[in-house]
């Protein structure tokens, strides 16, 4: 098991390194030199040179690459081009928790509801509950999250549609995870308020994973129900509940965990689109604004953080897998 863990870890590190280099190169082969873009068409050459020197952009590429990695290792993501002097890490420390909170909340909705829907569909296979739930699943993957978000706004006019907390709310939270922190530290009133603000965006974002989870749950449950040993067990009088709890759920949970991994990228992409609709101050809005403003240093930093988040979350899931899946544990032992 440890060997497997270490291999996964090494893979993650390699992927991240390649990502860093790819992003580094991508930003530097841009058609327009961002420094020149900054100064405009009649820029004074000395000023450009000075700026290039300050940013270290006139050195050979490999030296820059080393400096870049060194900077990253210190956790320094640099400053914004479009808003001189603004530290990117400060903005990210607000944006990343906002995006993560939204993503986690969506998963908290998608997994239990998806499993429930899938179970119901499996139990009443080929009758109307099955058809309805599968039709919903199909719609769930076909309706774009940004359109669904708009529909939710129209359908629930009384719900807040922007921001994470009501304007002008003062609080004494230490992190930017407003909902989770206030919930965990027992500030229930604040938790309720932030939950209200979180509700619509999280529901909108949860639909695709919900549809996928329910479909996967249904299929893996059916797989178990059809297995010979269970038919035998049922014939011998084991209750349906017992079959579900002892056999079907463990099997389904592994499939769900697996598919959640596959869905992470889609979930992060969806989060970015959802944020735009709901004015959610997360990573997505930050990076989209930066692209529109040609703020290359921010695009670079956000790309790195997104890649990092993605790799870390995937790694976490892999580890969970190893811990929970007896088959994999066996396989890695032998």
């Amino acid at each position, binding site marked *: 098991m440890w060997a497997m863990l270490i291999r996964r870890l090494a893979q993650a590190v390699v992927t991240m390194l390649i990502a860093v280099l790819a992003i580094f190169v991508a930003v530097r082969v841009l058609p327009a030199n961002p420094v020149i873009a900054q*100064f*405009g*068409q*009649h*820029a004074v050459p000395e*000023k450009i040179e000075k700026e290039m020197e300050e940013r270290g952009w006139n050195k050979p590429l490999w030296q820059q690459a080393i400096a870049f990695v060194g900077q990253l290792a210190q956790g320094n993501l640099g400053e914004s081009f*479009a*808003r*001189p*002097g*603004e530290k990117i890490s400060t*903005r990210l420390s*607000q944006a990343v928790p906002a995006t993560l909170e939204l993503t986690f909340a969506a998963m908290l909705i998608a997994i239990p509801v998806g499993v429930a829907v899938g179970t119901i569909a499996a139990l009443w296979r080929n009758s109307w509950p099955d058809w309805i739930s599968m039709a919903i699943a199909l719609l769930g993957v076909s309706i774009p999250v940004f359109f669904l978000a708009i529909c939710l706004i129209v359908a629930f006019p009384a719900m807040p*549609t*922007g*921001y994470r907390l*009501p*304007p*002008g709310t003062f609080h004494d939270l230490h992190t930017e995870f407003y909902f989770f922190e206030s919930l965990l530290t027992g500030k229930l009133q604040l938790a309720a308020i932030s939950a209200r603000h979180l509700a619509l965006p999280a529901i909108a974002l949860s639909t695709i994973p919900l549809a996928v989870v329910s479909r996967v749950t249904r299929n893996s449950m059916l797989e178990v129900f059809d297995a010979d040993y269970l038919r035998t067990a049922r014939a011998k009088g084991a209750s349906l509940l017992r079959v579900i709890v002892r056999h079907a759920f463990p099997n389904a949970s592994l499939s769900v965990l697996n598919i959640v991994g596959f869905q992470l990228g889609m979930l992060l992409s969806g989060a970015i689109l959802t944020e735009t609709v709901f*004015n959610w*101050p997360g990573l997505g*809005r*930050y990076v989209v*604004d930066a692209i*529109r*403003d*040609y703020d290359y240093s921010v695009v670079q930093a956000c790309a790195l953080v997104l890649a990092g988040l993605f790799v870390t979350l995937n790694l976490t899931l892999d580890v969970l897998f190893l811990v929970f899946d007896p088959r994999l544990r066996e396989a890695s032992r032998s």
Partner: protein
Amino acid sequence: MVTDTLIYGRGGDANALDPIHTDIGESVKVIVNIFEPLVAYDEETLDLVPGVAESWETSDDGLEWTFKLRPGVKFHDGTPLDAEAVIFTFERILDPDHPHVHNNIIPYYSSYTQIEKIEAVDDLTVKFTLKQPQATFLANIAMFPSGIVSPTAVKKYGADFTRHPVGSGPFQFVHWKPKQEIVLSRFEDYWGEPAGVKRVVFLPSEESAIRVTQLKRGEIHLADNLPPSEVDGLENTPGVVVQSTPGINIGYLTMQTQKPPLDKPEVRQAITYALDRDRLIEVAYAGHAQKAKTMVPPTLWGHSDDIQDREFDQAKAKQLMEEASQKYGFKLPLKLELFVMDQPRPYMQQPRQTAIFIKDALEKVGFQIEIITNDIGQHFQRMTRGEHQLGLSGWSADIADPHNFLHTLLHSDNINEIGGNNLSQYKNEEVDKLLDAAQFELDQEKRTQLYKQAQQLIFEDAPVLPLVHVPVRIAQRDFVEGYKLHPSSQVRLKSARIAEQ
């Protein structure tokens, strides 16, 4: 609901809070509450009244101005506001290479270049010496870029001063979460009467619909730059009050005159004929705007009413384009880029709709338009660099002087990358001469004549297409009292209070 926090909803976020580094309205709204210049505006008019300076006098030749500072004024960080602080402030304004200037955007630089030197007579007296007498000097001193900054804070924060502004105004800075909120709190040691609310939150949201909903729910207390049709609707909403003032502003279309094909006057003229501004006012302003024919608003002296405007004439525009295409050998449709900002301005509450209207109109007479949307800071920065061909722009008066419109927007001195606002890069020596003469002439009658001549010349060259003058309207909850709209569209919240209900 009793609250001591005033929440101001607006269409966008500030881009900088250092007074010398911005000319974006959303920044100015915050800056004027934190910083105070030597001379202030009256609460309701553009008259100049004592501010940090108690009194001032000028020499007979108009070259020397002596300001007597109010004793006992403190900055928010406790530093005393004295002659030294004033001199420090102006050294930063006058010298782009000053060690405490950390950004190459200094849009108001040219407004202060007539200052020869500043000296301290004593601790509370400063003397300005000018290169030549300037009609607008005192008004320029009252503009927000010359708000007095705390030297201690500037030295302490360095480049970060723009995110930690420290002045002497009625509110002090608390925090700024970009694109989320800017929070100010009442400065208890303010020299005058302290502010009426304990805290102010500036809340940006680009989507007007969101601000309308929030105002209706009472989540925000004031909402500005709303689409005029929305304001009409809000007028009948219980609990909401609409304030309005004529406004001294201009919304216009800039045409980059130094780049082909807009360097050809015929093409620019075709554009002015192609646009039905009366329809535009219906579509994008719900009728709440006045058609503009010159850059100087009619609410301001010096406005020229003699100009024979080019009325909407699609056939003529088409014909001009066909002639131009033969004369200069370009093919129709002619491709142009139209730059648009992503958030509402007082002179243009619906920039996207305005842009699409212009695009549709121009495509009917032989153009092909691509709309390019940018964040407001980037929008103007890219246009000061001349990257655009067509661009939506506008101006709200900083001071009650045509100089503020004509010189700022059309004098060749203001073509530069440090934030100069001659976006059309219009260069006409004659116009420059007239504007200079008007600036240094002290007789208002003569100045009026000079400005009228300049407006006629500008009209003939058509480097810009003046679109509209817009009344400033704001919707607010009825329990907000004491806040009056200012004709300059500056937002000074000192007297605003929240009434008990």
